[in-house]
């Protein structure tokens, strides 16, 4: 496969001024929070009850990881922001999540393919971070690693069932791969570049078994890690943050 072409998202300084360790924590937390919010949209709408529960559980796991990472980030930075400050009181431009997680759910095949691409990445990420010198981050990552492996077991088995299923399910799964592949190179920007090969192997083998093709088009999009997002993040944040924006400081 040819080298991916990374799109030229607007250049410039990120909107927020964070130290590198805090920035990395916030970026990973944002990935998990935004994906949790997306997965939560499935609740009461999944194709069967078991999947409703599964997607709700995925969302809870990701939300829990986000909360722990935000809390840790707040403790590391001098301002001591809380998890709610990070989640509910930052504008879109300060969110550092990858574009993949903010994409809309689409149909069930679309959500499962997005899950495969992202879960396979997170398994490598957490395995790496669980061995790091920051013991709190290592602990959070160690727990998240076990969860990510379980998520990957679920999403990869669904991608295989759908891709190697009926003409209809195959078509939908292939359309999802075609639509989402352009958001995968961004996962491996910076320190995560070292996991790209193993990720490509894991995802490639699953797609092969699922009779699905990686699209020829090498065009790749980027920008999320610098706060430049697609049109889908704004509405997601508007819904998620509405209560705190309307009634600042409101508590249950």
């Amino acid at each position, binding site marked *: 496969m040819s080298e991916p072409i990374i799109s030229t998202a607007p250049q410039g300084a990120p909107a927020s001024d964070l130290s590198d360790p805090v920035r990395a924590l916030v970026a990973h937390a944002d990935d998990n929070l935004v994906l949790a919010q997306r997965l939560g949209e499935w609740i009461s709408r999944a194709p069967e009850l*078991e999947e409703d*529960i*599964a997607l*709700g*559980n995925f*969302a*809870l*796991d*990701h*939300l*829990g*990881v986000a909360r*722990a990472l935000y809390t840790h980030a707040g403790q590391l930075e001098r301002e001591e922001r809380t998890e709610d400050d990070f989640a509910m009181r930052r504008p879109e431009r300060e969110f550092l999540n990858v574009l993949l997680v903010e994409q809309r759910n689409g149909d069930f095949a679309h959500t499962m393919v997005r899950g495969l691409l992202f879960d396979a990445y997170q398994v490598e990420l957490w395995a790496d971070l*669980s061995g790091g010198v920051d*013991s*709190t981050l*290592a*602990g*959070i990552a*160690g*727990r*998240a690693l*076990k*969860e990510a492996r*379980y998520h990957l*077991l*679920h999403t990869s088995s669904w991608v295989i069932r759908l891709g190697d299923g009926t003409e209809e399910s195959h078509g939908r799964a292939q359309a999802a791969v075609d639509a989402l592949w352009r958001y995968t190179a961004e996962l491996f920007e910076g320190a995560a570049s070292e996991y790209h090969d193993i990720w490509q192997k894991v995802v490639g083998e699953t797609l092969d078994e699922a009779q699905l093709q990686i699209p020829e088009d090498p065009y790749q999009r980027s920008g999320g890690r610098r706060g430049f997002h697609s049109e889908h993040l704004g509405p997601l944040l508007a819904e998620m943050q509405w209560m705190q924006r309307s009634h600042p400081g409101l508590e249950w």
Partner: protein
Amino acid sequence: MVIAIAVLDLERAREVASRVVDPEIPVLTIADLGILRGVSADGHRVVATITPTYSGCPAMLQIAAELRFALGAAGFEDVDVAIAHDPPWSSDWITKEGLEKLSGFGIAPPGGEIVCPKCRSGSARVVSRFGSTACKALMACTACGEPFDHFKDF
């Protein structure tokens, strides 16, 4: 000169804390589950340290509240609940007694063969990888048909 200060009875605080039960599996105490990592003193304050099971387990907030309540009711006025992420919790930390309580409650425990709590058959199929709580999967016995929860190996 001797200054009389109230010395915290940590042994008693540990005993009170270890009796707090999991709100979702009330046959298990947090000591059985292995999530109570320690009870220590910070001046006049009792600090109970717990480790979350799953990242998304909603019971943690409840457990922290129950700990404050139980210790408060036992006369410990200043209580803090600390969260320790490292090392991450594992289902291997559930005590032997905890595993037996799970089994008696109708939940197949982690670690080893999954046995039907009703007919003791060792053949079961997964109905759903996600069950009534984050830590359980829903199984069905292929011998007697009984649906049951399995506390997942984690």
